[in-house]
């Protein structure tokens, strides 16, 4: 059995290559001047610079949180560069003018940026280090009134939307890493779906960290107007490097009345080597606000990063709003994950559903941390939480930290949890039926994750399948 698990556990990170490209990287260090420099490079309006500076001043008064169940050497915020972009001579007229090396990078990652070769029905925004290098299918989307572009472009083209919604779900003062992001965020994606429009294709952003010793601080803002629908996918990779790199992103989702937003992530940042050297610190704030009859659904497959610290959450503001969180988190070698969700029930008859699957292998430590909070006016609130852990081997750990707080006595809250271990007998049974050990482990793990995988859009389900070496039964075709 151990050989099967070792094989699964020891597979090489496939996305660890670097792209040799000239970059415009600002020197390490963080001060008000850095914030001004980033804002100036992006030619931002005054309101945004002001917002960044407020965030920076607030951040300086904050201390790094240490309540997550993770440990790492302190981060030197002055040793990181806060902005890096591939050097281009002039603004790109179209994707065809994109530096071939960058194009090649995305090809290698399996993210085609040539529209003729695109995955049917998926528009892609590609973020390379600090900037968006291209967005596909823009014209097609425009016909439906859908705005899908880089954050920087949105600031230039649609400042009124940015000013109105930026920070409306995750204020700059929210937490240490969100404040840092607010001060120095470089790029990211912006989505706006107009009233009553069902976005005709999946939208996708692919984040790539390339430069060394830089942080990636992207900011994504998704606004679904009344009655709108959108499904959004996010993927991430980074080269193998022996030093740790900080990724402190913020994702904000606004789902106005009757809108539905489905947000799916396959996170595969470089996780560090077997000894825990290198890898990404993935300290991310993701939160959505659901108004009356709106629904926000988070699905995440977290396989990468040295440390993952993230809690995609939903504020159930309006009556009958629904929040969902489906998560698979895999830790291996010396990876640490402290992830889960927060469901804040404010409106009446709000519902939330949480399904968390944690898989721990090697010396990995996996923590589920989830908060369910029912405020006094949330009459008839309903939550169901299911939290399952699977252990592979004897040196890993699984931890569960549920926080449940009900201030309205009509609330119904359920929490179920289980821990299991991949058994030698299960592997032997499948081997006796002709499966290789690796295939057997994949099948068992995929069965364990089935409830989450079936929530993923098909293109992503396929990627998740590749990623975990898992056969995806039940969820595709």
């Amino acid at each position, binding site marked *: 059995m151990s050989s099967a698990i070792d094989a699964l556990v020891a597979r090489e990170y496939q996305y660890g290559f670097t792209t040799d490209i000239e970059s415009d990287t600002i020197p390490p260090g963080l001060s008000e001047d850095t914030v001004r420099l980033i804002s100036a490079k992006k030619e931002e309006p005054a309101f945004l610079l002001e917002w960044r500076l407020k965030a920076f001043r607030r951040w300086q008064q904050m201390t790094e949180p240490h309540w997550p169940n993770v440990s790492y050497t302190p981060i030197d915020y002055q040793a990181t560069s806060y902005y890096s972009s591939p050097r281009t001579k002039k603004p790109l007229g179209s994707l065809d003018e994109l530096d071939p090396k960058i194009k090649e990078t995305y090809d290698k990652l399996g993210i085609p940026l040539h529209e003729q070769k695109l995955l049917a029905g998926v528009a892609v925004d590609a973020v390379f280090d600090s900037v968006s290098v291209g967005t596909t299918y823009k014209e097609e989307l425009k016909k439906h009134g859908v705005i899908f572009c880089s954050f920087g472009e949105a600031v230039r083209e649609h400042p009124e939307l940015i000013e109105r919604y930026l920070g409306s779900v995750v204020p700059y003062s929210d937490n240490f890493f969100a404040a840092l992001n607010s001060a120095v965020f470089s790029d990211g994606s912006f989505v706006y779906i107009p009233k009553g429009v069902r976005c005709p294709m999946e939208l996708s952003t692919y984040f790539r960290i390339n430069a060394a010793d830089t942080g990636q601080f992207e900011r994504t803002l998704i606004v679904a107007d009344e009655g709108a629908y959108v499904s959004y996918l996010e993927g991430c990779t980074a080269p193998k490097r022996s030093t740790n790199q900080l990724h402190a992103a913020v994702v904000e989702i606004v789902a106005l009345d009757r809108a539905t937003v489905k947000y799916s992530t396959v996170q595969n940042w470089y996780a560090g080597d077997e000894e825990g050297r290198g890898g990404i610190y993935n300290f991310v704030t993701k939160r959505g606000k659901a108004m009356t009859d709106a629904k926000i659904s988070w699905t995440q497959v977290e396989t990468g990063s040295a440390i993952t610290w993230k809690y995609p959450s939903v504020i159930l503001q309006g009556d009958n709003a629904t929040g969902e969180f489906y998560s698979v988190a895999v830790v291996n070698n010396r990876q640490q994950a402290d992830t889960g969700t927060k469901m804040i029930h404010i409106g009446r008859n709000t519902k939330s559903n949480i399904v968390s699957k944690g898989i721990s292998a090697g010396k990995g430590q996996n923590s589920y941390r989830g908060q369910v909070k029912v405020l006094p006016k949330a009459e008839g609130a309903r939550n169901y939480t299911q939290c399952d852990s699977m252990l592979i081997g004897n040196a890993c750990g699984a931890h569960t930290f549920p926080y449940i707080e009900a201030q309205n006595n009509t609330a119904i809250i359920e929490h179920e949890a289980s821990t299991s271990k991949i058994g030698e007998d299960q592997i032997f*049974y*499948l081997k006796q*039926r*002709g499966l290789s050990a690796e295939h057997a482990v994949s*099948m068992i793990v995929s*069965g364990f994750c089935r409830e989450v995988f079936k929530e993923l859009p098909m293109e992503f389900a396929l990627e998740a399948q590749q990623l975990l070496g898992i056969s995806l*039964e*039940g969820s595709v075709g």
Partner: protein
Amino acid sequence: MLTITNLTATVGDKQILNGTSLTVRAGEVHAIMGPNGSGKSTLAQVIAGHPGYEVTGGSISYEGQDLLEMEPEERAHAGVFLAFQYPIEIPGVSNAYFLRTAYNEVRKSRGEPEVDPMDFLDVMAEKLKVVEMDEAMLQRSVNTGFSGGEKKRNEILQMAVLEPKLAILDETDSGLDIDALRIVADGVNKLRRPDRAAIVVTHYQRLLNYIVPDFVHVLAGGRIVKSGGKELALELEAKGYDWLVGEPATGAVTA
């Protein structure tokens, strides 16, 4: 087809098989009987290659190959099938997917093309009849929440799908009512062919009324202490095992 010579095996510090020898030719059905703890299940598991047992001596030759050198999945590809005494649950994996994967793995190993899900449904429709199981069974997770009888029938279904050359049934009759017993036995009998063989491990003579063996062996203390034809099973039913258990080995003279 199968030649086991002087096999010894341990689990942990405990020696379970103590010089077992057995020859099975194509077309034969062998029953292995014996008291609790005599090593019947261990023998079945060792033939299939369970990693929890350590083979400390002897040999197993299967169709001219050294079986002990083969991984469990290689044994499966070569046509060795074990119907488990306690079938294992695999939550979240549908029976249909599991069966199709196993079926295709065996086909792949023979250089045959894989069968897609639609065609496989046709294969299954026929096999389900053998074990009198409903199609709904295919959508349930492998053995998860199955009753004891369902689990055993599911083993026979897998056997019917994989059509092994050498089927080993490890106490497949235990805990079955008479109808389920008949279904299981029918499943085995339908597979009987001159080029196939079966080893039926059982406690009770009852199953052998339905699956009529060519040979009956009594395993005690980790070795075969008596072999005979099908009438030996009836004798055991009448006399129990006590008269054999004291004997050191087949043919040895007792004081």
